[in-house]
C-alpha cells in the first residue's frame, strides 16, 4: 500500500514536473499519463464498493466522472438509516440532506434497508416518514431496530401501520423482516402475507403486543419458506407449531420464543401440548429452539412438565432450584444454558442431572447462584471437553472440604483440557 512520499513527488505541479514526467514516460513504456479521473466507470465502481459512505461522498466530489459513479445503482442497494436526536443522543445520525437525496435519486435501487432509531418519538416518526416514501422500492430485507427504549411503540398505531404497509405492498419480494418492539397488528401481517408469501424466510417480531395468535398463524399457513421466526410466548399455539410442521412447509432452522411477565402473578401462561412439540421436532429435527424466560419464580408452573426440544435456554430473572431440576429432566437437546440468578441454595444436584441427561450441552453461564466446588468439578468431569463455553461468576463457587477456590481453577482446567478461570463480570 502506498501513501505520502512517492505520491507527493508525482503530484507537485510546481518544480521539475517536465523532468519527472519524462522519466515516468520511459519507465511506463507508453506515452499516456494515467488519467485516474477518466477511468472506466465500471472500474471506479469496483473501488467505490470498498469505500464506506463518507469516503464515497468525498470521492464523489473529485470530478464529474467520479460523481456519476457515486450515483450508480449498485452502490445504493444497502442502506442503514441512523435516526437520532442530537439533543438527546451522542450517536451519529444520517444527514437529512442525504436522506432527501436517497429518496429522490435512489429509492428504487434500495434492497437491503434498516432503520436504527433511538428512544425519542421524533426518530421513530422520521423512520415512518421515510418508509412511506419508499413507494418505488422492491426491498428484500427490512429491519426496524430500536437502540434504546422502543420508540416505535410511542407512535400512533395507524401512522406506523400505514407506513409499514407501503413497503409490504410495494416490495413483493421481502425475504427478511425484523419488526420487534413495534405496533404491528394482524391486518398488516395479512397484507405482508398477501404480497410476500413466496419469499419470506425470516420474521422477527418479539414484543409486538398488537398481534394475536391468529395473526401469526396466518403467516405460518401461507409463508411456506419461513426458516427463522422470533415471537413472544403469547403468540405460540398448538396450531402454529402444526402449521410450521405441515408437509408444504420447509424445515424451520431457528425458533426464538420470549416468555415475558410484566407484573408478578398477573400473567397467565397457556400450555402447549406435547404432541405439538413432537410433530414440530419430527418435521424440523435440526431446529434451534431458543427460549428466553423473564418470569418471576412462581410463574414457571406450566413449563418444563414434559419433554420439549429446547436447545438454548436463558433465564433472565431468578429461577428456582425446582425448575432447574425439571429442565434437566425435560430438555435432552439442550446445547446452551444461562442462569442469571437463583436462590441461595446450592444447585449441586440440578447441575449433575443436567450433565447426565443433556449430552449436547456445550455452553453454560451461571450468575447469582451457588454451587459447591465438589459438585462443580463433578459436573465438568462429566461434560468434559464438549464444554466450549463455561462462564461462571467467581462468587457462585462455594469452597468445601475437597476444594478451595485456588484449587478449583486447576481441577477444572485439567478436565476441560484448557486453562480456565471464573469470571469477574457476566459475559452475556
Amino acid at each position, binding site marked *: 500500500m*502506498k501513501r505520502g512520499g512517492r505520491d507527493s513527488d508525482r*503530484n507537485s505541479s510546481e518544480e521539475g514536473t517536465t523532468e519527472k514526467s519524462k522519466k*515516468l514516460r520511459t519507465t511506463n513504456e507508453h506515452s499516456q499519463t494515467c488519467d485516474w479521473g477518466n477511468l472506466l466507470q465500471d472500474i471506479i465502481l469496483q473501488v467505490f464498493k470498498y469505500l464506506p459512505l463518507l469516503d464515497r461522498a468525498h470521492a464523489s466530489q*473529485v470530478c464529474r466522472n467520479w460523481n456519476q459513479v457515486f450515483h450508480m445503482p449498485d452502490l445504493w442497494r444497502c442502506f442503514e438509516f441512523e435516526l437520532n436526536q442530537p439533543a438527546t443522543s451522542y450517536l451519529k445520525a444520517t444527514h437529512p440532506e442525504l436522506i432527501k437525496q436517497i429518496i429522490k435519486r435512489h429509492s428504487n435501487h434500495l434492497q437491503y434497508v434498516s432503520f436504527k432509531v433511538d428512544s425519542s418519538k421524533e426518530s421513530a416518526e422520521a423512520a415512518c416518514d421515510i418508509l412511506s416514501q419508499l413507494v418505488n422500492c422492491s426491498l428484500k430485507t427490512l429491519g426496524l431496530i430500536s437502540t434504546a427504549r422502543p420508540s416505535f411503540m410511542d407512535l400512533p398505531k395507524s401512522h406506523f401501520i400505514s407506513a409499514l404497509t407501503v413497503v409490504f405492498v410495494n416490495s413483493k419480494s421481502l425475504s427478511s423482516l425484523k419488526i420487534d418492539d413495534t405496533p404491528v397488528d394482524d391486518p398488516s401481517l395479512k397484507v405482508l402475507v398477501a404480497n410476500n408469501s413466496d419469499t419470506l424466510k425470516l420474521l422477527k417480531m418479539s414484543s409486538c403486543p398488537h398481534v394475536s395468535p391468529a395473526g401469526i398463524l396466518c403467516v405460518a399457513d401461507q409463508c411456506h419458506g419461513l426458516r427463522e421466526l422470533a415471537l413472544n410466548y403469547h403468540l405460540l399455539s398448538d396450531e402454529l407449531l402444526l402449521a410450521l410442521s405441515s408437509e408444504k412447509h420447509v424445515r424451520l432452522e431457528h425458533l426464538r420464543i420470549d416468555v415475558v411477565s410484566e407484573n408478578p402473578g398477573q400473567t397467565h401462561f397457556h400450555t402447549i401440548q406435547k404432541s405439538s412439540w413432537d410433530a414440530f421436532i419430527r418435521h424440523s429435527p435440526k431446529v434451534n429452539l431458543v427460549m428466553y424466560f423473564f418470569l418471576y419464580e412462581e410463574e414457571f408452573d406450566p413449563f418444563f412438565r414434559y419433554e420439549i426440544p429446547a436447545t438454548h435456554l436463558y433465564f433472565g430473572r431468578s429461577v428456582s432450584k425446582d425448575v432447574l431440576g425439571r429442565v434437566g429432566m425435560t430438555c435432552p437437546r439442550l446445547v446452551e444454558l444461562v442462569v442469571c440468578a437463583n436462590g441461595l441454595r446450592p444447585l449441586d444436584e440440578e447441575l449433575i442431572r443436567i450433565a447426565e441427561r443433556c449430552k449436547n450441552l456445550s455452553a453454560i453461564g451461571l450468575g447469582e447462584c451457588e454451587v459447591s466446588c465438589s459438585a462443580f468439578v463433578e459436573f465438568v468431569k462429566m461434560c468434559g471437553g464438549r464444554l466450549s463455553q463455561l462462564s461462571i461468576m467467581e462468587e457462585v463457587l462455594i469452597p468445601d472440604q475437597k476444594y478451595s477456590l485456588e484449587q478449583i481453577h486447576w481441577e477444572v482446567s485439567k478436565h476441560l483440557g484448557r486453562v480456565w478461570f471464573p469470571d469477574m463480570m457476566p459475559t452475556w
Partner: protein
Amino acid sequence: MPSIKLQSSGGEIFEVDVEIVKQSLTIKTMLEDLGMHDEGDDDPIPLPNANAAIFKKVIQWRTHHKDNPPPPEVDEDKEKRTDDISLWDQEFLKVDQGTLFELILAANYLDFKGLLDVTCKSVANMVKRKTPEEICKTFNIKNDLPGTNKICLWTSKLILYF
C-alpha cells in the same frame, strides 16, 4: 503442460502456461473466436490493450495465485473489507501510481477478477480518510464539477455530523 502464445501491444510474444490464463474470459473468448485449441497452433493471440511490462506483472501475479480459485461472490448486503490484502500482494503492489493504473486496466481488460479486486482495494485504501481536495492531489485529478463549493457543503456537513 500446454502453453499458449500471447502478444502484447508492443509486439513482444510471451509463452505462458494455459492454466494460468484460462481464468481470463477475454483470452478464453479469443481462443474460441479464433478457432484455436490449447496445443499445436503457433500463431500468438494479440492483446493490443496490454503492454509488455504490465503483461509480465500480470503473469507474475497469476502464476503466484494459479492454485487459488476465482474469488467468490460476496453477499450484496455484507460490508467489503480492505484490510485483508495478503502480504505477497502488498509487496507486489508496491509500485508507482502509473503501474498500478496500468495493472487495473489490464486486470479489467483481461478479466482477472482476483487481480482487479486487489488493485481496487489498494486504490480504495489510498482514497480513504481523505478530503476531496486531497484525493484530487493524490491522483492528479482536475476537478471539473460545477459549483463545487455548494455541492461540497452537504458533504462537509456529513463530516461534522460524524
